[in-house]
Structures are given as C-alpha cells and as structure tokens.
C-alpha cells in the first residue's frame, strides 16, 4: 500500500448514507408543530366533510364529480373529496412540506452546518426529497383513508354510481376508491418535486410554499380553456383527472398510463433540476441576501410566465376528444343505464333491460362542427325501441376540458328526490348526472 493510500481519509466505520439523511429530515419535519397540525387536519377535514355533506343531503356539491352522491354513499364522499384534495390539497401539502425544506435551511441559516458534515450533497438532497414525499403522501393517504372510513360510517356503503351510469357494488367500490387515491400519489410526486425545485431555486419560504399552489391554480385555469390533446398530455396537472378512468366503462387504462408517464417525466425534470441546483450552489457570504432572493424569485416568475404562455399557446393545438360524436357515444348508454337504476330503485324490480338510447348532441352548430368544452351543449336522447312511445329527452350539457360532463333535464324527468317502493327517499339519478368521455 502506498504512503498516500495508507493515509487515513475515511474513518473505519461507514459513512452516512441516504438513510441517515432521511432520518434527519424526517425528525426535523415532524418536530415542527405547524406541520403536525397539518397532519392532524388531514384527519379532521375528511371527517368534517363527510358530516357536512351528510347534513346537506340531498343537495350536495354537484359541481364536482360524484358530489351529488356525496351524502348518499361513503364512496362518493371520498371521491368528492379526492377532487379537491388533488387540485388544492396536494399543492398545499407539497408547498408546506417540500416548499420549505430547502428554503428553511436558508431561513434558519443552517446550510453551513449540515454541509460541513460527512453526508454528500446528493444524499442530503435525496434525504430531503424522500422525507418531503413521505410526509405529503402520508398526509394525502390519511385524508383518503379517513374520508373513505368516515364517509362509509356516516353516509353508508350504498353502491356507487360510476361515470358511465353503472352501479358499482360496495366490494368493488372499496377497491376502486382506494386505487383512485393511490394513483393520485403520482401527480402528487410531481408537485412535491416542483416544491423542492422552487424551494432551492428561490431560497424563499414564501415562494416555496405558495409556488405549487399558484402553479396548480394557473394550470387549472389552462385546463378550463385547453382541450387540445397535446396540452392534455403535457400539462403536469392533467394526471389529477386520470383516476376518472377507473370509474368509466370501459376503463380507459391508456389514460391512466398516460397520466403516470406525464407525472413521472415532470417529477424527474423538477427533481433533477433541484438536485443540480443544490449540487452546484456556492455557499458564499451573500448567498441569502434579500436582494438575491428577490432576483431568484423574479427569475422564477419569469420562467413560470414563459411556461404558462407556452402551455396556453398549445392548449388548443392538436386533435381533441371533445367532439359531438364522442359525447353521443358516451351519454346515450349512460342515460340508458341510469334509467334502469331509476326504475329498479323506484319499483324494486330487477326485471328491466337497458333501453337502447340514441343521442344527438351539438353546440348550436351542426353535430360535425360541434367540439370543445363549454356549457352550451345540448343533447337529445331518443329510445330507439319501436313503439315505445317515450318522448325524446332534451338534456343541457356542460362539457369540461378534462372530458367530463354534467347533464340534466331538470324536473322533466322527475324531482331530485324520489321515493322507492318501500317509501325510502333516494336521489333521482336522471335529474342530473355526471360522466366522462375518457381523455386525452
């Protein structure tokens, strides 16, 4: 052994690895009372939500998928909350746990302490990323589990009406709702990585915490106008809707796969950029001055504006699934299935077959020209059986950019609440209903 090699560089025992960094970061996160409160809220909010929706029955948050069933079925309660948890809860949790995890070191001035230890910057970055992910995922899954349990306990375990008008029995519903929450961990990872990136790039807690929320808001806004398939594929927020595919018939597994790929790619981009920035950062004496933080925030805002502008630019580019043909193909069988459910609930008789419905949809223009999201769609549904005698039904339809729609004929098809053959009240499934085409 050479003299140089024999010189002791590393102590005999092992160097700290990723596990040590994760342990340290977890200990720091869980020691902060504010973050403990957040985790407690992840338990309290779903319980309060389940109790509230039950108290509001039969009216519910009908502008959200499954919202109109939230007080009638615990599965719907959980899925209603999942909509909000995806678009508001995840960015908020990501901001709170990931957005401050790097910037917090700048705020406390502790970078110099931890970087002078034996752990490498890569391990420290990895430890922070994993700890933030564990906390966000734990909070999110806690919300999911509590909402499902509290929903079933408070609203009951009645069958779930899916987005194709079918009744999903409780056994299957448990699994599908759990899968929906689990699937959303993927887009959650994207926003965690975004929080990490904003945190290290801005060195500012405010930017790190609020950044994911602002980005999610901007993306949501784009979702309202963007119906092009390209925007649906590349938007980091689009995978938040992918779980809808679990509740359609047939299940659009391609949508789930597309959402997963989009989430993984964005997570890798954001996470890789965060790692690169930490690795190349020089910890000089003026690295956290307010002037520097302002400059970093301005740079981030500039990049964000460019990204949003690009997304806005491509939002309408490419083919779209939001066509009259797609809507007709989806809404007709769904209406037929809901009509069956309506009949069964009202009469208690199972001996009924789905009426063959035909739909004609448009937005004022002809069927061929009608496309895109909007609340000005209308569909006329006709029972094609000969001599049935049932008059055509005209539905007002709102088609959203994410491919989901709500349709209703108001009291033309009966009151909101009806009574079954045993005298028990139930929600008229034809009064207003939701469905999804399956996008992109």
């Amino acid at each position, binding site marked *: 052994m050479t003299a140089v090699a024999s010189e002791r560089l590393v102590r005999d025992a092992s160097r700290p690895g990723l596990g040590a960094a994760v342990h340290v970061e977890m200990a*720091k996160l869980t020691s902060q009372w504010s973050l403990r409160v957040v985790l407690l809220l992840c338990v309290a909010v779903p319980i309060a939500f389940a109790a509230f929706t039950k108290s509001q029955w039969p009216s519910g948050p009908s502008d959200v998928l499954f919202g109109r069933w939230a007080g009638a079925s615990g599965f719907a309660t959980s899925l209603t909350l999942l909509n909000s948890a995806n678009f508001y809860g995840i960015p908020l949790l990501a901001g709170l746990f990931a957005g401050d995890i790097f910037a917090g070191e700048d705020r406390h001035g502790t970078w110099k302490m931890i970087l*002078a230890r*034996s752990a490498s910057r890569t391990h420290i970055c990895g430890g922070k990323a994993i700890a933030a992910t564990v906390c966000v995922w734990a909070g999110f899954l806690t919300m999911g589990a509590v909402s499902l349990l509290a929903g079933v306990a408070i609203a009951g375990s009645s069958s779930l009406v899916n987005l194709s008008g079918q009744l999903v029995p409780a056994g299957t519903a448990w699994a599908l709702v759990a899968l929906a929450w689990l699937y959303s961990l993927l887009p959650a990872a994207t926003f965690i990585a975004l929080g990490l990136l904003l945190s290290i790039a801005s060195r500012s807690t405010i930017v790190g915490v609020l950044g994911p929320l602002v980005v999610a808001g901007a993306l949501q806004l784009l979702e309202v106008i963007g119906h092009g398939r390209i925007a649906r594929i590349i938007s980091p927020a689009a995978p938040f809707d992918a779980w809808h595919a679990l509740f359609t018939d047939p299940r659009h597994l391609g949508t789930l796969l597309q959402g997963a790929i989009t989430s993984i790619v964005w997570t890798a981009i954001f996470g890789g950029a965060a790692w690169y920035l930490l690795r190349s950062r020089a910890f000089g004496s003026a690295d956290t001055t307010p002037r520097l933080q302002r400059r970093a925030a301005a740079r981030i805002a500039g990049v964000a504006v460019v990204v949003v502008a690009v997304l806005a630019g491509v939002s309408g580019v490419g083919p779209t699934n939001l066509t009259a043909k797609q809507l007709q193909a989806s809404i007709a069988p769904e209406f037929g299935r809901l009509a069956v459910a309506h009949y069964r609930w009202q009469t208690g008789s199972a001996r009924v077959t789905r009426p063959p419905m035909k739909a004609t949809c448009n937005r004022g223009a002809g069927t061929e020209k009608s496309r895109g999201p909007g609340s000005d769609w209308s569909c006329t549904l006709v029972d094609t059986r000969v001599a049935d005698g049932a008059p055509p039904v005209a539905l007002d339809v709102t088609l959203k950019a994410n491919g989901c729609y709500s349709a209703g004929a108001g009291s033309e098809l009966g009151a909101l609440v009806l009574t079954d053959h045993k005298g028990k009240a139930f929600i008229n499934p034809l009064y207003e209903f939701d469905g999804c085409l399956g996008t992109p």
Partner: protein
Amino acid sequence: MRPVLETRGLVKRYGELTAVDGIDLSIGPGTVCGLLGRNGAGKTTLLRIILGLLASDAGAVRLFGHEASPHDTVARERVAGFVEELRFYPYLSAVRNLELLSRLDSAGASVAPGDALEMVGLADRAREKVRGFSTGMKQRLGIATALVRAPDLLILDEPTIGLDPTSAASVRTLVRRMADDGKTVFLSSHNMTEVAEICDSVVIIDAGALVWQGTLDRLREQAPVAAYRLWTTDDAGARQLGREFDIDIDRLSSGALLVHADDALRNSFVLELARQNIAVRQLEPDISPLESLFAALTGDPAESAGESESQGIPARSEADKVHR
C-alpha cells in the same frame, strides 16, 4: 512532517473583486494557527473554501496530504468547524440539534452530544430549545457541533466572539488542549491577545493576499518597539529627560505622553523620572508589538480603525492619527 492543511495558489473572485488572491499556506499537525486580517480581507472566504462550502476559481486545497475538491466530504472527513454567525434549528433542543447533525457524520470516532455539551459548558441547557439561546450560547453550541465529529483539523471563525470573559477563556483552554492532544486548529480572530495567548503560528492576509506567515515567536521578533501611554506630574520635564535617553515621545490629544521604548529602556527611564522627582501617575500599554506589526502589514489603518477597535484590534495608535 506532512502538513495537515495546505493551500496552493488559491483564488476566489466575486465579479471584479478578488476575495482570495493566490494564497499559499501550510499548517502542521498539533498546532494552533491564527488567521488574522482586517474585515473584508478574505478570511471567511478562505475558510469557506477550506470547509468545501465554496469552490475556488483557481488553486488547490490539500487536507492531510490529499487534494480536497469542492463538496468533497470524503477528503474533509477529519475536518470540522464553522464560519460566520452560528445558526441552528430553533425548534429543536441543543442536544437534539447535535444528535441530528452528528447523524450526518460518519460513524466511528466521535464524541457523544452530551459530552460535547459538557465540554463547552452547556450540559445544563441541553434540553432547552435553541430558540432562546444567547449569541454566546450559540457560539458554544457551534463549537460543540464541531467537537462531536472528533476532528483532527478544527476550523473556527472567531470562536470567542460574543462570549463573556469566562466562557472565552474556557474556549481558549479547550482549543489549546486540543492542540496539545495532537489536533490542529485553524482559527480566525480579531483578538490579538487571544492569538498571542493560544496560537503557535499566525497567517496574516490583506486584500485577499497572504502578507505574512510564520510562528508567533518570529512575529514577535519582527514586531516594532512597543508604545506606552504615560501620565506624569511634569510632562515637560519628562519629555526633556526622554530626549536625553534618546526615547521618542509624542503628546497625544488626550494629554498623555506616548513613549516608544523597549522594556529595558523604559524601565531605566521610569527610574530616572523618579530620581528627578517626576511622579508617574499612570503607565499603560498603548499598542502591543503584535498589533503594531499587524497594522503595518495590513495597510492603511485609518480605513479599518472604526471597525477594528470594536473587534479588539486597534488599527494604529492614537499618536499615529495625531501626528500624520
């Protein structure tokens, strides 16, 4: 003996400013080396580069004979220390801060957090949140965070700043004891008395460049004659006698006489004053030889006077200001 710390041609620029300008230094094992320089001389930047927090634009750092590139935590395995203001996680206790930081160290030779706190006199405050700690307590906790790594090279940036005299003395004792145990300590300081008390060698930098390096004894040899402030019952007589002794005496704006003389000449002068019935009311050192040399080596004293005096280094004597 192989140096513990070496730098060769180290350069760090911030735009137009060259903070570290080609520094070559070498520190041997088992010594305490003081890093001196005026504010903004580049001391902290140099320490940051050595600790791996900052990459140099040119040059190299060698630790224990091995080149240490920036961010290389393996090469810095036996190094611990801190730069500038010490900050901790305020929502954690002192011992918890130490426990978590030590989790990021390699296992093996290390000091238990409790023992490290004991060494810096914080054992009784171990369970308290750092949020309520004073600057001095944080300074001691910072030293404890370095000690838990059981380093062979300890780098400290003004370790006694903010400490009360008793705590400062105990830190100095601790540093000296580490050197006696074979460890090497490289510390920056503005306190010349502290440097004279605990350091074996000194590195002086000015405007990013190394202007002097050597043992403290050699520094003392090169230091100019000491100056003393003198108050007598007959200043005119004292100045007349000074001329006979060939002693340089100036009058300060405060009314005191500034006497430039080595120890032997000063003793004879004072005895002669007494013989001529000129009473010595007060005699005190105006500036130490080390301070004189430091001021001479680090350029224009007027520029640093205001800030240096508050840190313990008078840039130049009052006489210099009066007579220039």
